[in-house]
C-alpha cells in the first residue's frame, strides 16, 4: 500500500514536469508553442497577438487613471475578486471569534489546576515595552502611506493593512494590550464591518452603469478624478477615482480583521478552560 502512494506521488511529479516543459519558456509572450490561435478563419501566430495583459498595460492609465497597473487590475478590472478576497478574510475573522468565543462565556468552569502551557511572560523588560511603544506609530504611519499611495507606488489595501497588523502583533508581544481584551475586540469588529460596508457600498454606488464601475475616474479633479497623461509620469494623489477609497476600505478591514485574529489567538492561554456543557446539536 505504501508503495502505491509513493508511486502515485512520483507519477504526479513526473507529469507536472512534463507539463511545465511544454509551458511557454520563461520570458516568451503567452501562448503555446505548437498552437496557433483561431481568429475567425485566419490562423494567427499566438506570439505577436496581444492578450488581456497588453490591453491592461496600454489602456490601464486611460481608463482607471492609476499609475500602478497592478492596483488598477486588482481594484478596477477584477475588483470582484478583491471583494471575494475581503469576504474570505471576514469569514476567517468570524470563524476564529466563533471558535474561540467559548473562552469568554461565563458559564465555563475555570479549572484551577489547568495544566496549560507555561504562561506567556508576565512582565517584559523595559527596553522591549518602551521600544515597541515608540516603534508602533512608525509602523502605523508606514502602513497608512502604503494604503493611500496604492495607485501610485507599489502597495495597496492588503499590503498596508498587513503592515499595520504586524504593528498590533508587536504590541501584543510586548504586553501592551493586556486588559479590556473583550472591549477592544468589539470595537475592532465594528471598524472591520464598517470597512467592508464602505467597500461594497462603493460597488453599489456605480450600479447605474454596472457593479463596481469606477464612476469617479476621469471626472473632476476635486473628487479624485484627475486624468493622467499616458506613459511615465510623477503620479498624482487625486487621480484614480474610487481606487484609493476601495484601497482605504480594504486597508481598514485587513488591519482590524487580522488584529482580532492575533488578539484572540494570543489570549487563548490566559482564559483557556476545559470546554464543557452545552447541548449536542
Amino acid at each position, binding site marked *: 500500500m505504501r508503495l502505491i502512494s509513493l508511486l502515485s506521488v512520483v507519477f504526479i511529479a513526473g507529469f507536472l514536469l512534463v507539463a511545465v516543459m511544454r509551458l511557454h519558456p520563461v520570458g516568451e509572450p503567452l501562448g503555446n508553442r505548437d498552437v496557433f490561435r483561431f481568429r475567425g478563419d485566419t490562423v494567427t501566430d499566438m506570439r505577436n497577438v496581444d492578450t488581456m495583459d497588453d490591453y491592461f498595460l496600454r489602456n490601464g492609465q486611460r481608463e482607471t487613471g492609476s499609475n500602478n497597473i497592478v492596483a488598477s487590475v486588482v481594484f478596477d478590472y477584477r475588483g470582484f475578486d478583491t471583494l471575494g478576497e475581503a469576504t474570505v478574510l471576514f469569514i476567517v475573522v468570524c470563524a476564529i471569534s466563533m471558535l474561540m468565543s467559548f473562552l469568554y462565556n461565563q458559564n465555563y468552569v475555570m479549572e484551577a489546576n489547568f495544566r496549560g*502551557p507555561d504562561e506567556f511572560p508576565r512582565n517584559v523588560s523595559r527596553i522591549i515595552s518602551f521600544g515597541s511603544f515608540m516603534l508602533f506609530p512608525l509602523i502605523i504611519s508606514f502602513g497608512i502611506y502604503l494604503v493611500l499611495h496604492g495607485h501610485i507606488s*507599489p502597495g495597496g489595501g492588503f*499590503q498596508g493593512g*498587513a503592515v499595520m497588523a504586524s504593528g498590533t502583533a508587536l504590541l501584543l508581544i510586548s504586553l501592551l494590550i493586556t486588559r479590556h481584551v473583550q472591549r477592544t475586540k468589539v470595537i475592532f469588529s465594528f471598524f472591520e464591518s464598517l470597512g467592508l460596508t464602505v467597500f461594497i457600498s462603493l460597488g453599489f454606488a456605480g450600479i447605474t452603469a454596472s457593479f463596481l464601475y469606477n464612476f469617479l475616474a476621469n471626472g473632476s479633479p476635486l473628487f479624485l478624478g484627475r486624468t493622467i497623461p499616458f506613459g511615465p509620469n510623477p503620479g498624482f494623489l487625486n487621480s484614480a477615482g474610487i481606487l484609493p477609497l476601495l484601497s482605504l476600505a480594504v486597508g481598514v478591514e485587513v488591519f482590524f480583521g487580522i488584529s482580532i*485574529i492575533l488578539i484572540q489567538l494570543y489570549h487563548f492561554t490566559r482564559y483557556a478552560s476545559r470546554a464543557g456543557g452545552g447541548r449536542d446539536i
Partner: protein
Amino acid sequence: MISPIIFIILSIVIIIAAFLSLYFRDLLACVVSFSVLSLVLTVIYFHLDAPDVAIAEAGIGAALTTCIFVIAVKLTRRREE
C-alpha cells in the same frame, strides 16, 4: 539585465529552506526555516519585477504567518511526538 545566477542561488536557498522546514523535529525550528523561505521568496518576487507581491509576501507571508505559527506552537506541543 539581471543575470540568471541570482535566480539559481535564490532557488537553491528556497529548496533547502523548504526541505529543512519539513525535516526538523523541533516545530519552532520548522517555523523559523519557513519564515526564511518566505523572506527569500520576497527577494525572488522583487527580482521578478513584482513589487506589489513582494510587499504582500513580506508583510503577510514572513511577518504575520510566522507570528501565528509561533503562537500556535506555544499553545500546543513544541516537539513533534
